[in-house]
């Protein structure tokens, strides 16, 4: 298959004149902004990949005069740290993206939900927010942003759990529908977007949707900020054009001995060496919120799987049975297989359990435990058993 290969891009961290971009956006109508974002093909950069323009369109269509723009900065997926870098280096672009979203959907208030682990950043972020508010007042546009701080709960990255947390409750996901576009924070129509998505919006408005569509592939437009860690000589944050294969990624970031790449964190997919060439990083292959972990042949994939299951068993909110009990049983199950207390065919039963969790769990956490489980067990079965 022909593809573009690995290309480094500098869009997200590129310096822009905030005021200029916002003045351009504020001259556009709500419909025009939404049209631009739809045309750009931008999909949510948090990992789930819902088209941003559609989200805004649905929220804009709601009649309720009280609406919210929420920025999801509860970056908790193991192996993801790009949102912190974006907030650290270009917070003003995130605020600008929120202002553009507010214009598109008709909201006057924005909330940034920042994970508790990033609290040390708050003084600097508040300072920049002060300058942003001053600038926005100068333009005569009516919009205010405030911060809410998490307190160490992975599940609050799930949008409806995040709303519950803002409201002062336990971060337990809600049933859907209704979706946030109808009933989000304070049960008002809400557009909730990832940090990177909002920063990207700024760049789409600046350069135009058409220019943006030159990057990436049909299913995965644009570029993406990747968090690279694990067995690599160059760990860090890299903005890359979407559409490369895992092999091309490994050629750039591997240590010469890469046996697997976990794409999308603990809730993502494990790609083994034999599938590097055929697997595209993006919505047509393995989707990712940006977490890329490389493992070389010195690593035990049993330890990796055990670590992920331990993570999920702790971070499951406990509200729904498939996820609460499922995570614990998967963890106990692989331990038993490893110790030889049960036959290795027991792994097949565990895969069935993971599949059941995918269907029966209430939210994305329980639904995606099976991604890593299935792909690690299928590709590294011997390592799990012996």
């Amino acid at each position, binding site marked *: 298959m022909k593809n573009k290969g690995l290309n480094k891009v500098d869009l997200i961290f590129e310096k822009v004149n905030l005021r200029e971009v916002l003045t351009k956006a504020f001259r556009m109508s709500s419909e025009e902004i939404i049209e631009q974002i739809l045309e750009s093909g931008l999909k949510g950069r948090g990992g789930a990949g819902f088209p941003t323009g559609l989200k805004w369109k649905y929220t804009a269509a709601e009649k309720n005069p009280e609406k919210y723009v929420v920025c999801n900065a509860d*970056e*908790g*997926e*193991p*192996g*993801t*740290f790009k949102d*912190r870098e974006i907030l650290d280096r270009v917070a003003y672009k995130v605020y600008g993206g929120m202002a553009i979203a507010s214009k598109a959907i008709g909201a006057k208030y924005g909330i940034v939900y920042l*994970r*508790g*682990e*990033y*609290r*040390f950043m708050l003084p600097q972020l508040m300072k920049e927010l002060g300058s942003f508010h001053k600038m926005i007042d100068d333009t005569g546009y009516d919009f205010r942003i405030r911060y*809410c*701080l*998490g*307190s*160490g*709960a*992975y599940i609050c990255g799930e949008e409806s759990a995040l709303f519950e*947390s*803002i*409201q*002062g*409750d*336990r*971060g*337990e996901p809600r049933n859907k529908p209704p979706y946030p576009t109808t009933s989000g924070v*304070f049960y008002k129509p809400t557009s909730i977007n990832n940090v990177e998505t909002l920063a990207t919006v700024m760049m789409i408005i600046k350069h135009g949707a058409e220019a943006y569509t030159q990057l990436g592939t049909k299913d995965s437009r644009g570029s993406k900020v990747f*968090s*690279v*860690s*694990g*067995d690599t000589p160059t*760990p*860090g*944050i890299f903005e890359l054009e979407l559409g490369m294969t895992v092999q091309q990624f490994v050629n750039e970031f591997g240590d010469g001995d890469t046996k697997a790449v976990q794409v999308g964190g*603990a809730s993502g997919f494990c790609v083994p060496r034999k599938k590097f060439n055929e697997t595209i990083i993006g919505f047509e292959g393995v989707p990712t919120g940006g977490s890329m*972990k490389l493992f070389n042949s010195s*690593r035990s994939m049993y*330890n*990796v799987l055990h*670590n*992920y299951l331990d*993570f999920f068993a*702790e*971070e499951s*909110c406990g509200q729904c049975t498939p996820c609460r009990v499922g995570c614990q049983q998967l963890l106990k199950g692989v331990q038993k297989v490893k110790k030889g207390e049960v036959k290795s065919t027991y792994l097949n039963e565990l895969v069935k359990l993971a599949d059941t969790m995918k269907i029966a769990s209430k939210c994305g956490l329980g639904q995606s435990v099976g991604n890593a489980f299935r792909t690690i067990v299928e590709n590294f079965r011997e390592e799990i058993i012996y």
Partner: protein
Amino acid sequence: MYQVGNLVRELASKHGRARESLMPILQGIVDRHNYLTDEAMVEVAKELDISAAEVYGTASFYTFLDIQERGKYVIRVCKTITCSMKGKSEIIQTLEDMLKIKVGETTSDKMFSLLETNCIGWCHKAPAILINEIPYTELTPEKVVEIIKDYMQK
């Protein structure tokens, strides 16, 4: 044990008394006193005019809103995969030896608590820890000794 009445009123005046103020108020108490006592949670419930069970429900959900006694400096060592691959165990061992406590415990002078935590977002600079809200990254046992010595002298 600590007296919390004035602090709760101060925080409620700052953040408001609506239900959504609960998290910032609880975070404010933990910030000052390191953990939440039963008395503190009851006091918050009175101030916001909600049931103490609601306050406990929220507090007990969040890892950083500790409802067990904690020291002045809470050390959280990341145990997720990359930190685990890059020497988390040596970091824990160093901290345990230095503080003479195990993971989950607090020193008898109530200065340090040692805990493990899930991914704190420093995988590219693993291993990493948080001491209260401050991250320390690319750690070695030697660096950890220096950092803790500094805290001991504070």
